[in-house]
């Protein structure tokens, strides 16, 4: 169904940034005075002029049909003069000036299945990647795990009942397209088996020196196989990172039995209070169990529950853990500490404890 090509413009860039701003924002741009959260999912911004802007935030799945986008457009026409925006975490925000429209909009959104919330000390949308829906590198499905986890944590989306903000992110391989490595809870899909070398395809598809150079641990060596240039992998040196696969399609890592998920905790990107932090390993591996990954859901729920019960007001996951110490985190959550929790890559030694600052408990009995 090839179509006529009309004119061809290039390098026009995105629409101008003022083009889609609602009039109330055009008028008060840069002149907002303060804001408050009126209730979960409803934000009020007051301008120096006294003008008021209400933002109603609704959950949206990142994978969205154009038909739903049309629904959002229709709601924007009906309730707020045709203006809306998306957030950096894939939620949708309707921008209203008429306070009376808030309740009917929320009503309508709920009816259509897009509930309102995700503000303040809550759990908002999980940022995630493609998974089995669209990527060659995936060790799990992103959308399915995210949906399952959010179904379980849903009460924390609609309420603001946590000590602080709790951000969850998901990535389906170590490439980490969502850069999940600074989240309160990161769910990261992992491969655990050696890349499978496709002897036939490799010499045709891959450049040997580039493939060898792609490995961060130097695990790949050139090797003649059946009279053709190919490579071999030193098993003990492979950490299943998938770098070789990125440059050489003939070295696949996916493995139905051995792929699965790991869980990381205590990262943050905001500078509020504690400096930004990476997430640290909590659970090295949970097998894939579609369609609802109950073991992953239970593990995340457990960590959220223990955090909710023990952290103090405003404390993010990582701040709380730093205060109580990692030994206590493992004890409270009942998560097993294993050799996999101890780093052995580039900067491994930096995470070893080099002091006697330890919290001991009296011997039992």
């Amino acid at each position: 169904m090839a179509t006529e090509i009309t004119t061809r413009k290039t390098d026009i860039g995105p629409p101008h940034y003022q083009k889609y701003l609602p009039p109330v924002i055009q008028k008060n741009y840069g002149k907002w005075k303060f804001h408050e959260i009126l209730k979960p999912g409803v934000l009020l911004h007051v301008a120096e002029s006294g003008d008021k802007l209400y933002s109603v935030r609704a959950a949206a799945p990142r994978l969205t049909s154009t038909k739903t986008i049309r629904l959002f457009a229709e709601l924007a026409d009906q309730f707020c003069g045709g203006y809306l925006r998306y957030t950096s975490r894939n939620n949708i925000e309707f921008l209203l000036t008429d306070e009376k429209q808030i309740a009917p909009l929320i009503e309508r959104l709920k009816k259509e299945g897009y509930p309102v919330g995700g503000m303040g000390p809550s759990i908002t949308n999980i940022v995630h990647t493609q998974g089995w829906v669209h990527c060659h590198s995936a060790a799990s499905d992103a959308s399915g795990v995210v949906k399952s986890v959010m179904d379980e944590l849903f009460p924390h989306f609609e309420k603001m009942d946590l000590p602080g903000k709790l951000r969850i992110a998901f990535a389906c391989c170590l490439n980490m397209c969502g850069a999940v490595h600074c989240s309160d809870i990161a769910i990261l899909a992992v491969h655990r088996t050696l890349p499978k070398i496709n002897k036939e395809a490799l010499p045709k598809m891959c450049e040997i020196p580039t493939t060898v150079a792609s490995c961060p641990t130097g695990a790949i060596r050139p090797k003649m196989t059946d009279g053709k240039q190919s490579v071999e992998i030193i098993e003990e040196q492979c950490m299943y990172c998938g770098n070789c696969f990125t440059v050489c399609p003939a070295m696949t890592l996916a493995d139905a039995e051995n792929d699965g998920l790991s869980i990381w905790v205590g990262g943050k990107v905001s500078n509020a209070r504690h400096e930004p932090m990476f997430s640290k390993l909590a659970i090295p591996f949970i097998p894939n169990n579609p369609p609802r990954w109950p073991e992953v859901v239970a593990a995340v729920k457990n960590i959220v529950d223990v955090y909710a019960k023990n952290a103090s007001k405003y404390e993010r996951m990582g701040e709380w853990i730093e205060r109580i110490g990692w030994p206590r985190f493992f004890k409270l959550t009942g998560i097993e500490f294993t050799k996999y929790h101890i780093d052995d890559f580039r900067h491994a030694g930096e995470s070893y404890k080099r002091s006697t600052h330890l919290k001991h408990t009296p011997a039992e009995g």
Partner: protein
Amino acid sequence: MADKKKPTPKLDELEKGPWPSFVKEMKLSAETNVAAQDLLGILERSYDEKIGHWKHGGIVGVKGYGGGIIGRYNDIPQDFPEIAEFHTIRVNQPPGWFYSSDALRTLCDIWEKHGSGLTNMHGSTGDIIFLGTKTTELEPIFSKLTEAGFDLGGSGSDMRTPSACCGMARCEWACYDTLAAVYNITMTYQDELHRPAFPYKFKIKMAGCPNDCVASIARADMSIIGTWRDSIQVDKDQVTAYASGPNRDIARDIVGKCPSKCMGWDGKNLTIDDSNCVRCMHCINAMPKALAPGKDRGATILVGSKAPIIEGALLSSVLIPFIKIEPPYDDIKELIQAMWELWGENGKNRERIGEFIQRIGLGNFLEQIGLEPVPEMVSQPRTNPYVFYDIKKG
């Protein structure tokens, strides 16, 4: 249109529950689109087999562009021919992700006619993601997009689509105009965005204040994070009003959680020693009516964050402690170009600028791009005595 709907018992499970369902979305598109039907089919197969069915991307694109399209083919095309080719199109989002309903409908019109009707709003870098179409549709989509005022985003070893928080459009904390700046930078570097010529990807993200709602410190090679130099603005009456509210404990929750321990509260008066404040935003976040960032506003520029691939994950580190962010942004552009030149010439294939800086050393990097070292760039001076003294340079 042949109806190719197959049963999807596993995916159907994911239509249940309170959270919006991506399966419902896929089925909505599948009602009228055979590619979306096949996508449901192949995903159900993945759920059965616990393995993906996508092959490593191939090189596809539109004329004159080196990025913006990600080639995608499945490995069982005999079973799922409608998505034998199923390429992604990255469309540069409007800054701050603001839309009119008409703009959204225009995008939908294009994508329903020429693709699967499935999207990601938005991808991890910020682009509008059109998920799945055939090679022959790429040029028609491209010309209709540009006709409608939209252009492709980045992919491959180029400047990736820059992104920004909503900033001054809807946030009183924005310490510079993130939307104006991101638009200007994006327009200035259209060539670098559309025609990959770097060692690897380069991301720029702009956040209006240290809350960093776009996660720039974790996800951008260049993070521009708003901050201020003078004193936090205090509205005394609002402090009093805050203190008298329910469940308010300023000593414990605000003063007690200040990372610089530079605040005081005697039950009536809030004091801040601004010379010791690290501009973390905590007190302002907690009391948005009473406190606000100062008036002498600008940004801190940091470089080098990235996900683990290849040498391990990095957060961005300070390059310029404070700079005014004002049009025409010449000083920022000079900095960007100096970094690109150095890294472009000396960076290894697939070496992000953060890894490059670690390899050559931040000190050498600064020297090459013509910046003076300052103590704000490190958390502490080195402890390692193996110094590469350079007595010739003095």
